[in-house]
């Protein structure tokens, strides 16, 4: 039996659809439940329902063989896992955004020691370091757009799907940090010890994802 760490909600529903198409019955994943571990014996899968940011941790320690997590969360977590499949849903872009009124067009125009609010401090620090920009990163846990409005921060680093939230809060993107979408990840040892079982699932999932793309 393989265990898969997923976060409950829209993204796990999309993953459940992919698994169903791939021949792994897992309607249990879409049922409303408060259980944290649910099994689909007919598919040979056990689902561990975790917070999105904890999924890479479960997988790194081998508490789960596989995991489904956004590339943004995965890079931020910086865990030693194997990244196997781009599931191509949950797409978003991580951007640097500033208040429209600031009139800044380019990240290099940010003031020295600008304060940047973000849920992704690791990614933000690496990005600014790579671009030679001196910035003070302020880690927050949500509603990042609030930062510039109340004067806590000069800019934000956050993900956006359509850009609507940014516009509604008077922000505009001045740089793209990275593209993100959901990824199927694996524990590095599980991927070797349970290779055949896992590879069967990986290839079935890849098949479904490739079909949907066309």
């Amino acid at each position, binding site marked *: 039996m393989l265990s898969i760490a997923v976060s409950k909600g829209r993204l796990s529903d999309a993953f459940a659809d992919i698994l169903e198409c791939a021949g792994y019955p897992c309607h249990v994943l879409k049922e409303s439940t408060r259980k944290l571990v649910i099994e689909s014996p007919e598919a040979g899968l056990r689902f561990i329902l975790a917070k999105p940011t904890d999924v890479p941790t479960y997988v*790194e*320690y*081998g*508490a789960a063989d596989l995991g489904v997590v956004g*590339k943004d969360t995965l890079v931020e977590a910086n865990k*030693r*896992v*194997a*990244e*196997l*499949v*781009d599931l191509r849903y949950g797409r978003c872009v991580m951007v640097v955004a500033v208040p429209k009124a600031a009139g800044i067009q380019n990240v290099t125009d940010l003031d020295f020691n600008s304060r940047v609010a973000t849920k992704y401090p690791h990614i933000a620090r690496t990005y600014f370091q790579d671009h030679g920009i001196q910035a003070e990163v302020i880690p927050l846990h949500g509603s990042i757009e609030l930062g510039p409005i109340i004067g806590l921060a000069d800019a934000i680093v956050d993900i956006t799907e359509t850009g609507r939230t940014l516009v509604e809060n008077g922000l505009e993107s001045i740089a793209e940090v990275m593209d993100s979408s959901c*990824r199927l990840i694996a*524990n*590095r*040892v*599980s991927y*070797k*010890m349970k*290779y055949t079982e896992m*590879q069967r699932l990986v290839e079935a999932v890849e098949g479904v994802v490739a079909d949907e793309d066309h």
Partner: protein
Amino acid sequence: MRTQTPQGVKDFLPDDARWKVQLEQSIRRSFAGWGYQEVLTPSFEFFDTVNLGDSSDEQTLKFLDRDGQLLALRPDATTPLARMAATRFRDTHRPLRLSYVTNVFRANQDEVGREREFFQAGVECIGVASPLADAEVIALAAELLRNVELDQFQISLGHVQFFNGLLSECPDTQTRQQIRRSFLNQDYVGLQGILQRSALPQWAKNILAQLPRSHGERSVLEQLKAEVQNQAALDALANTKEICDHLGVRGLQKCISLDFSMLKSLDYYTGMVFEGYAPHLGFSLCTGGRYDRLLGQFGPERPAVGFAVGLERLLWVLTAQGQQPPVEPPKLFVWPGHGSHALRLAAERRAAGDTVILDVQNLERDEVLAHAKTNGMSKVIFVVGDDVKCVDVEQGGGQPC
């Protein structure tokens, strides 16, 4: 006073300490049985000595001494042993077989499974470049794991020259680094994009793209051989085949799985590399490989191959598969704990291999049995004058001793 220990170090209480010592004894027997001689190196050395791979720089715990010299706690055992072999056995031309059981230190923080102080046991076979030496080291690792009664394990075998050979087909240094990083981080999604954009020949792109999946049995060797058009990579395949042949003769083909996507974060490997895995452990259990140029950093170049097993990880896996710490040997309690007769008796029993504990609290006679019971003694020996009586703590009664 702070009563916690820093993150990443730990105490071993008697049960765990006894278990660890027992494991070490079993491991030492394996090493000695194959003619590996145990050596010790200092806990710390000059930073420049132990910091050979650039990736290990930030992983090293460094400090300054009073002369302002930068020192480092050994981040692994292989580099100090290479230094020792290259300098202290400079003129030795015969193969050197050295082993160690030691603690090593890393600057890791906040990561379970990657402690700041941990224990390793391993061997280095120095002076021979043959596939037979590679096979010997792998076979010794397998024997060690069997001897500690590990139910199930797998050894993945790869070769860094295969990967390097393929990469040498890529003219652009930056792309080479990106591909290497993808394999090190096992980012197989990012890898596909990098390969597509690269200037690698199509055959090399195909192999690299499929490499994470080129797992398993010896048929992988033939498949890859048919596609590869690079001499270094072909040599690596031939070398791996020879090692596999030797392992086959040793009856190890069942626990060996080929994996040419395996890269090492330590930079000194030059040939075959391997890792051992067990169920219930999300990390590798043992790791090793050939490093033919490391000794050259300290003296004349000499080929070498070795491996190390992580003792905490081994204990973890054995616990997960249901093993218990070894039981403590039975303890005898001698009362009263003074008087020449009692002391002589205690000495005799110790000489015969028993664990003998003398009463040092001047217990009253009627307290002795209760005390012995709560303190895990199996028998009490009462010595009153010439009268010696042995009482079984569980069963009571009294027999002459």
